[in-house]
């Protein structure tokens, strides 16, 4: 008879215990602090260097220096955190909370208020495009080693 009994204890316990699952829509799931949910940007610190764009394994990030925007396709992002590691200004972070589902794959875009330092000489209009490239040089330096 003993061979039929091993599960009986468990069965009785199940009858009188609460469900093991969370009652989701009524009880929200609490994420641990380290959960890699989505990539956030602190736009005030961003220098538009483009390291995140170049390091991103799935190619989800796009940095437009001329248009001063930082764009991420959250549906392509795999939350690996490599961009966070590579960011020279540490303005990227991974925070809990997953990408919400949506009817369309929309890119999330941020306008970065970064003003490149003005060069000493006063060149004409295209300076805006050339200067960030210079400013970003120090950040680019480790790229060949990476």
């Amino acid at each position, binding site marked *: 008879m*003993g*061979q*039929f009994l*091993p*599960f009986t*204890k*468990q*069965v009785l316990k*199940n009858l009188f215990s609460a469900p*093991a699952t969370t009652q989701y829509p009524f009880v929200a799931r609490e*994420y*641990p602090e*380290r*959960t*890699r949910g989505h990539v956030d940007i602190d736009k005030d610190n961003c220098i538009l260097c483009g390291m995140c764009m170049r*390091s991103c*394994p799935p190619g989800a990030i796009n940095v437009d220096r001329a248009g001063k925007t930082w764009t991420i396709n959250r549906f392509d992002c*795999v*939350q*690996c*955190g*490599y961009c966070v*590691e590579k960011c020279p200004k540490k303005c990227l972070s*991974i925070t809990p909370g997953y990408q919400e589902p949506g009817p369309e794959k929309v890119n999330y875009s941020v306008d970065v208020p970064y003003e490149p330092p003005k060069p000493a000489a006063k060149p004409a209009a295209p300076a805006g495009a050339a200067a960030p490239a210079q400013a970003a040089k120090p950040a680019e330096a480790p790229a*060949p*080693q*990476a």
Partner: protein
Amino acid sequence: MGKRSIVPYGPQHPVLPEPIHLDLVLEDEKVLAAIPSIGFIHRGLESLTSKKDFNEMVYVAERICGICSYMHGMGYCMALEDIMNVEVPRRAEFLRTIWCEMSRLHSHLLWLGLLADGFGFESLFMHSWRLRERILDMFEASTGGRVIFSVNTIGGVLKDMPNDMLKDFVRQLDEMEKEIRDTTSIFLNDYTVKSRLVDVGILTGEDAIRRGAVGPMMRASGINVDMRKNGYAAYNEIDFEVITSNKCDSYARCEVRIGEIFQSIDIIRQAVAKIPDTEINTKVTGMPNGESIIRVEQPRGEAFYHVRANGTKFLDRFRVRTPTFANIPALTQTLQGCQYGDVPLLVLTIDPCISCTER
């Protein structure tokens, strides 16, 4: 002599979510031979090495599999550390050991659940997975991911586990150990479970060696082989015995894996007691140039990594031989002479991961 027929099994089959195809040669209900074919989800891992640099490949490597993801990432990092002569800090080695054993725990609990599902014991399946969930929560608290952890890097690990967190994990594992013992005793002692496992799918030690089986499949045939005994990561400082069984059947495979669950808990306890306070990673500079072969013991068995680098940021070769690939010949052996109804169960006993196999 009965009537012979060939029955295609898979690639879509209710018992197995992953696509493997077997042509089963049947004589009435008895399987005479099984001819496997794979290649339905080939993803071209080697070709990716020409597009992703060797640092990005860490994240690609750990996406080879969703269950042993940690060890795929670690194996790849170990190969590059070997090529680049990087000394990994001791604490990182211990953290890797702890995460490896947590992976083994959740993989074996997952397998027990799938096995229970395979022989139709639904509630046992749910209980195994309920226990596994707590391990996943521990992973999420320590690495930030439940399945893909992204904590390995060439030269160490990216995240540290504070000592309080480690102590809390040990406390949680102590609590779980009793529950796991209750659940696993059903696998080992229940009459219905035994009737499906005992003397089903015999693989003798001789056959296991001849067919090149690995991992629990090999150990269940009485062969003492475990890559952890080679002492990679911090295993050289851990005291453990390789678990083997001489029964050679499906029950033995279940028994070995259950034994390894408790062994993993013990290894984590030992590692937490011995973990030193050092850095967790070293700065790695330069490009890899050379070749390396690394073997690690995954939950499913021995995985083999061959990396060849040429001094640029793109690798020449990155070849992975995963445990399921090595176990497929052993699977065809166990299928010979079994009943048709046991085929799904026997496919499950090798703990198949077809995504791993096809990379």
